[in-house]
């Protein structure tokens, strides 16, 4: 039951940033007309952000992580979220054990 001051500030800062994104859409539709170009840019943000987050792990960490990312992506085409994640975790654990990384 400890609460570090820096951790607390970081959590509050994350919460404020997240609430801003959740409220912003309501303000946007009140004041701004979203044209096709703006819509395209907004739609590209989620995959671009998520790809950026996983890229260093997927492509520049090691063969076990790259292999597991590919396995997860292939599994995601057929299986629900949790099953695909379980396969990714299983593959990375086995690959690390075999490669010794």
């Amino acid at each position, binding site marked *: *039951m*400890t*609460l*570090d001051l820096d951790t*607390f*500030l*970081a*959590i*509050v*800062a*994350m919460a404020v*940033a*997240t*609430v801003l*994104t*959740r*409220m*912003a*859409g*309501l303000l*946007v*539709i009140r004041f701004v007309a*979203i044209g096709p170009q703006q819509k*395209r*840019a*907004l*739609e*590209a*943000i*989620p*995959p*671009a*952000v*998520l*790809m*950026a*987050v*996983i*890229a*260093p*792990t*997927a492509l*520049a960490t090691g063969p076990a*992580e790259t292999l597991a*990312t590919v396995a*997860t*992506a292939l599994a*995601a*085409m057929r299986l629900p*979220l*949790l099953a*695909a*994640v379980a396969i*990714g*975790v*299983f*593959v*990375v*654990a086995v690959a*690390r054990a075999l490669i010794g990384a």
Partner: protein
Amino acid sequence: MKRVGISQEFFGGMRAMAPLTVAVIPIGLVFGAVAASKGLSSFEATLMSVLVFAGGSQFVAMDIWTHPASWGALAFSALLVNIRHVLMSASIGTKMPAFSGPAKYAAMLLLADEIWAMAEVRAGENRLTPAWYAGLAVPFYCVWVLASLAGAAAGAFLGDPEAIGLDFAFPAVFTVLVMGFWKGRDTGAVLAASATAAVLAHQFLPGVWYIAAGAAAGVAATLVTNRHQEACA
């Protein structure tokens, strides 16, 4: 009479959400466990789930967590990861005529991906009421918080998550989500630009700038391919 209507609506939303509410339990457990392995106390991990309630950005925060925590970097990455909420709230905001002004903003506090998706489905086939939305969102929120707490409390006993590959759970969740955003060749261009920029920035820049670099490159890619298509058409 009106009371019965409200509770019926609430339980209707709760029932519609039930499969997703169950599915979020293991994800919350994993979040709590990894937060514990990063040195957060059970209270801190649970507080993050209570106040932030955005799985994606909480996973990313664990990825870039430092001691002491860097609030600027964490807030910035939460902003980037959650910027999709702007589009989501803009979209569902046009489908909430049954909500008063303040109720609309209150509802947005719990606008997680899964809740947004179910609310969009409901608004497509029926009137989306505040009671139905509350039935959708509140139990899901409570389960997420409790699962985080349980995971953090158990996490201290689980040991090193890397040994059983548990540290890969977050990149795996993101990989699945990325696949869900696939809409053809344009998405391919976005992903390729984002991955290239992110790996380069990760190599040469400190902190989480690689997320901003990847996001900017991905958005630039979609605008460039769009202009190209318009020029060809």
